[in-house]
């Protein structure tokens, strides 16, 4: 039976990983780490979780260790943030290309300098093209559920790709809230033991990740691209099965009061809850506005997103990162949206706001102002950074 508990989201994330009966956790346990691996190390030390906890000397080593463990056929988890994620990134690309089903929780935090430990999506965008499946949770419940779902998807033989579950640093990772935690038997019924299709075994030697000469590299890349494309239906299928078992249903793209909306704001992550409250306020004033939230970032849910926004005249896209592109094009999430619309010959007005950098609060009122501005088609293109002291 699931039980409802009050718990810090990082602790709940660790508990979820424990429920998945993970075999190996490798992590570098200092800033910018969260309580996720700290709590997992306690669970292992106190004998609540039968797993190997390997404290390593850097995030680069953490992911290297995860690669070895996953290639040996073990269910493998790690967690990181911001600078740690950046240091790890070289190995992240190898994990996905070697098709290893590692699961990682990323508490999204800003990249330095100036030194920041606070929330934005710089690390998420920096790792965008790493070949991992990437989902983003809105609240603690979703983080728990996405982690269980992540192992199910990653280890599916039709997928065999690593997955990151993103949660906003501090604004989600350090918040206490009520969460339904399933029990181990329920999770085991959803998530069978991992059976690696191919694994490192001294009795049956294989090579992972050898040199790819120019005569095979393109084919290897195409194969990996196809694998990520083919993952989307499995991701959706695994969410359906999750919903049938646990009663909480998830989709790649979530809509809120968007069906008849003339103006839609597109968001990702926990900030979407604040945006939903702003939409409620504006709806009370009779304004036809709605919210669309992207839960699945890679593979990008183009079809689902177009379906969600196709009726809108004005679209505001929120980016949580400054992408330093020279200022003649929009931020990264907005670029994806514009590309989608252009390819389909659709031409609503698309506006781009950049907000919530390095922990700057984005309030309900901020959202109301952004949506109002978008309703009037008044936001400057290609983007506007809001809440800046001049």
């Amino acid at each position, binding site marked *: 039976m699931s039980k*409802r*508990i*009050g718990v*810090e989201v990082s602790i709940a994330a660790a508990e979820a990983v424990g429920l998945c009966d993970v075999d190996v956790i490798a992590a570098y346990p200092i800033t910018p780490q969260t309580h996720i691996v700290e709590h997992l190390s306690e669970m292992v030390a106190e004998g609540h979780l039968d797993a190997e906890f390997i404290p390593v000397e850097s995030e680069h080593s953490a992911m290297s260790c995860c690669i070895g463990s996953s290639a040996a056929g073990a269910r493998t988890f790690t967690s990181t943030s911001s600078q740690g994620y950046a240091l790890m990134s070289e190995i992240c690309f190898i994990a996905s290309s070697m098709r290893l089903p590692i699961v990682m929780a990323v508490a999204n935090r800003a990249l330095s300098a100036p030194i920041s*430990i*606070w929330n934005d999506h710089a690390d998420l965008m920096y790792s965008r093209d790493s070949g991992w499946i990437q989902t983003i949770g809105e609240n603690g419940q979703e983080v728990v559920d996405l982690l269980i779902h992540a192992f199910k998807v990653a280890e599916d033989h039709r997928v065999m790709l690593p997955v990151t579950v993103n949660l*906003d640093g*501090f*604004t*989600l990772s*350090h*918040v*206490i*809230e*009520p969460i339904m935690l399933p029990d181990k038997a329920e999770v085991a019924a959803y998530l069978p033991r991992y059976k690696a299709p191919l694994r490192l075994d001294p009795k049956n030697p294989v090579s992972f990740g050898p040199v790819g000469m120019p005569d095979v590299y393109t084919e290897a890349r195409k194969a990996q691209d196809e694998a990520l494309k083919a993952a989307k239906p499995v991701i959706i299928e695994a969410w359906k099965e999750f919903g049938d078992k646990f009663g909480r249903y998830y989709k790649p793209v979530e809509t809120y009061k968007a069906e008849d909306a003339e103006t839609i704001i597109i968001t990702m992550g*926990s*900030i979407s*809850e*604040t945006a*939903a*409250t702003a939409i*409620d306020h504006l709806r009370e004033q009779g304004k036809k506005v709605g919210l669309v939230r992207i839960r699945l970032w890679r593979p990008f849910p183009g079809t689902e997103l177009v379906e969600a926004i196709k009726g809108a005249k004005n679209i505001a896209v929120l980016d949580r990162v400054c992408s330093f592109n020279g200022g003649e094009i929009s931020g990264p999430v907005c670029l994806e949206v514009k590309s989608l619309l252009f390819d389909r010959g659709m031409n609503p007005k698309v506006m781009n706001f950049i907000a919530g950098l390095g*922990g700057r*609060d*984005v*309030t*309900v009122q901020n959202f109301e102002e952004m949506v109002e501005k978008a309703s009037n088609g008044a936001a400057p293109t290609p983007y506007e950074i809001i809440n800046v002291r001049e």
Partner: protein
Amino acid sequence: MVEIRFHGRGGQGAVTSAELTALAAIEEGKYAQAFPSFGPERRGAPVMAFVRISENPIRTREKVYEPDIVVVLDPTLLKLVNVEAGLKQGGTVIVNTHKPVDELRKETGLKAKLATVDASTIAVETMRVPITNTTMLGALLKATGLLPLQSLRAPIDHRFGPIADKNMTACTRAFEETKVEG
């Protein structure tokens, strides 16, 4: 929805106060959020922590700007911090002080409805440490009637283990000794 802001100094347990309040509310079947004023933890520096409690799911992640209730764990902060900032009309400020309300108001110029308790003395007498986090929760519940005192039992047991009883005693004594205006 009720919003609460705790003022303390790093190490005094303001964050723990916020967490225990949210956990007690969740224990009672309500919805709640607790979060610190995110930042590097520095012992002795002024810190804040926040709680939201609601009968319905809470759909906002913005900081608490207009609290209904403010709890001040350390009276020396009254000279440094405007603890009434953003306080809603009709809101309450709950202060750890040995001074009578009149004297406190005269000294600090606080305008809101006040509740006072000598939490430092209670904490030292019951727990032998001047940490007022659980003690001030007794004052919070007395002044607001937000939750039954017993709702703190399970969260305090879970958090403090062998010293849970002493914390509960301090909390209960504060509940009994808190003076609420009006």
